[in-house]
């Protein structure tokens, strides 16, 4: 760890990191508490949108101030994660819909163009 820090920086980074961790934990907590798959699919997006965003922002601010130059490469992780998570969730949701329809489970909407089954 570093020896000396301005007080405002440590408070700002602390608030951002703890807030982001709390949001991420809330999402993963939802993974345990929610009853079915379609509800649970909303849980990880909290970690990838705002939870992750706050923690990466804290990292960017911390390294920019302590290294005395602009460090924004956390932005790449943020962009990558926010763009790819919807893709994986959509693929997973479509796979689940497909499997639920084949198994004939209740509570699943029929295929929208209807001629497949």
């Amino acid at each position: 760890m570093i020896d000396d820090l301005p007080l405002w920086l440590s408070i700002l980074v602390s608030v951002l990191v703890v807030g982001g961790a709390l949001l991420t934990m809330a999402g993963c907590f939802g993974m345990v508490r929610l009853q079915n798959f379609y509800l649970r699919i909303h849980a990880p997006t909290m970690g990838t949108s705002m939870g992750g965003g706050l923690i990466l922002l804290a990292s960017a601010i911390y390294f920019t101030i302590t290294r005395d130059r602009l460090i924004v490469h956390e932005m790449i992780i943020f962009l990558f994660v926010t763009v790819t998570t919807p893709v994986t969730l959509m693929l997973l949701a479509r796979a689940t819909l497909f499997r639920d329809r084949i198994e004939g489970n209740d509570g699943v909407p029929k295929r929208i163009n209807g001629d497949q089954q």
Partner: protein
Amino acid sequence: MSVAILHWSLLAAQFLLSIAMLATLYRMVIGPRAQDRILALDALYVVALLLLITLGIRTNSQVYFELAMLIGLLGFVGTVALAKFLMRGEVIE
């Protein structure tokens, strides 16, 4: 003083993220179906990435950044492959 604040808040954040990892692990173990496990694995990847970022701030080094990015990349590819496998029964068409 300010170092102590940062130290304890990072510790708290890492504790929260560890609980989040345990929650996703619990869902991954009990399932009940394959898609639930894959969803939990995807969330686990993201939480591990964030844990590495906090570790980077804590140790004041940027080495963990590359690791975090690598986890993000592998997590994406892995989850897509698994989701495709659920849909078609094969990964490469």
